């Protein structure tokens, strides 16, 4: 079998007493788009810092194309491109000046660098903005320039850390089209950290990460199928009470998620009508739908992916 693009074994990291990563094991196959789905503060950024050689893990090993990030950081860096949450560009410099600067950090210069910049600027529809200073570009265009920056040295692995933060839906879609084009043309393996379901859905594989633990991984379709055909959601004022009653009367195992009960079932409509007959007065709202990655996330973590604002503040 080919060497995995990313091979992480038992990766653990502690900042003082806080455990940011706990025994994470995952592999990314070459050429794949792998989505790391989880809330902010879940451990994604720590994992990325270790992979990009900026942080030494407390325990475990991380390898990029077989190269240990701690033992051979230089060789890892040569094969790696990184897109950070904020564009890594100098506002005062023009598009070309920025790209030449970052190219030089990879030892690129002269015709080779000029041609590479030219190719990517044209591909990304930025050729007529090359002399503009970064601060005069829209957020979406800055992201595109930043993506070019990360691709100058034709990395084999691209790390994308919440790359569309702060973009409107149109700019986000345009950014993703460019990523897919690069995947097709250059075969770049991509590891994406995101808390957005619609970004995780089209990935070849998804890892669910929460509170430093990788709680599930696999192809999105397989993860969803494991929850059963359809999921039934019931909203009620006293979920614990209804759960107990469902268990007593029908022998059903429902999960409490927020103010709702979740039940997986091969025939959800029939199940709903049975429940409605018995407990209709207790049901505020009911819904049947195919499982989503959000359901997968909630099933494995017991809470929603997007915490309420108050929770988000507590988690920092």
């Amino acid at each position, binding site marked *: 079998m080919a060497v995995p693009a990313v091979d992480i074994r038992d990766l653990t990291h502690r900042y003082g007493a806080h455990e940011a990563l706990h025994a994470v094991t995952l592999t990314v196959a070459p050429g794949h788009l792998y989505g790391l789905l989880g809330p902010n503060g879940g451990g994604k950024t720590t994992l990325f810092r270790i992979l990009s050689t900026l942080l030494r893990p407390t325990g475990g090993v991380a390898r990029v194309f077989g190269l240990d990030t701690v033992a051979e950081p230089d060789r890892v860096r040569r094969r790696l491109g990184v897109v950070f949450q904020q564009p890594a560009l100098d506002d*005062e410099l023009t598009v070309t000046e920025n790209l030449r*600067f970052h190219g030089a*950090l990879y*030892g*690129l210069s002269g015709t080779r660098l000029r041609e590479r910049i030219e190719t990517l600027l044209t591909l990304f529809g930025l050729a007529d903005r090359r002399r503009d200073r970064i601060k005069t570009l829209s957020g979406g265009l800055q992201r595109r320039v930043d993506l070019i920056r990360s691709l100058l040295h034709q990395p084999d692995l691209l790390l994308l850390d919440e790359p569309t933060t702060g973009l409107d839906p149109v700019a986000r879609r345009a950014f993703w089209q460019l990523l897919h084009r690069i995947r097709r043309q250059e075969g770049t393996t991509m590891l994406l950290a995101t808390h957005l379901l619609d970004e995780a859905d089209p990935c070849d594989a998804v890892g669910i990460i929460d509170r430093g633990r990788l709680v599930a991984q696999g192809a999105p379709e397989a993860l969803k199928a494991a929850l059963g055909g359809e999921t039934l959601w019931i909203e009620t004022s006293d979920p614990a009470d209804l759960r107990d009653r469902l268990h007593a009367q029908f022998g059903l195992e429902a999960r409490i998620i927020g103010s709702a009960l979740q039940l997986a079932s091969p025939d959800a409509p029939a199940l709903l009508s049975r429940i409605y007959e018995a407990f209709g007065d207790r049901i505020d709202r009911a819904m049947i739908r195919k499982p989503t990655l959000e359901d997968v996330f909630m099933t494995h973590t017991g809470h929603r992916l997007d915490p309420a604002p108050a929770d988000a503040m507590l988690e920092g």
Partner: protein
Amino acid sequence: MTLSAPAVAALWKREIIKFARDRSRLIGALAQPLGFWLLLGLGFQRTFQMPVATATEVGYMEFLFPGIIALILLFTAIFSTISTVEERKSGFLQAALVAPTPRTALVLGNTLGGTTLAVVQAALFLLLLPLIGLPFHLVGLLLVLLTSLLTGLAFTALGVLIAWRMETTRGFHAIMNLVLLPMWFLSGSFFPAEGAAPLLRWVMYLNPVTYAVSALRQALYWPAAAPVAAAPLWVCLLVSAAFAVVMLALAVATVRRPLFGAR
């Protein structure tokens, strides 16, 4: 090492472009020392007296001149590194650190950029030399530039060292006021060590900036003898060079530590 040369050149060029585009920095870096020189120079003109007898009378404007060059060097050099504090938090510096460029090249490119700015500013100030009645002498000017280069390197490196450990630019300013101003005040720029109280004099002799100022003063009077000298010129140059090497080594060591190390 093939990676290093273009990287150092790119880092250097970036410093120069940024400085040239920032008009406030351009004006501030020259206007402030000039104002300082005029204010202090004209203010103390009648009160100032050399502690030792000199062949010709030395006015305060003249005495202060090398100290102002040192001031320009210290402040331009150090403050060229202040952007590092912000860049460390934004992606910019992280992007540089995930590139395969050696850390030494990163420090070298940054410090050379800041040093160039400092030396050019100092050289511009030298144009005022005729105002205090000192002649231009080629060897003397080359010695001034050499001293400026060493001092610029030492203080950009010190700037990198501090900026790398600072969380906010406010913290950077606070540290600078705590370190930079005393170093300048106690360097023989402001008043000669020879006339100071013994304890203070010893503090001044321990201050590396004293030797930079003295080297500048001796170079400005070259080939004649300067009215006062903390040590022979070669000693002053040697101390300045040693200080620059130590600061650069410390800066490289700091930048080599992991960015998100143990806290």
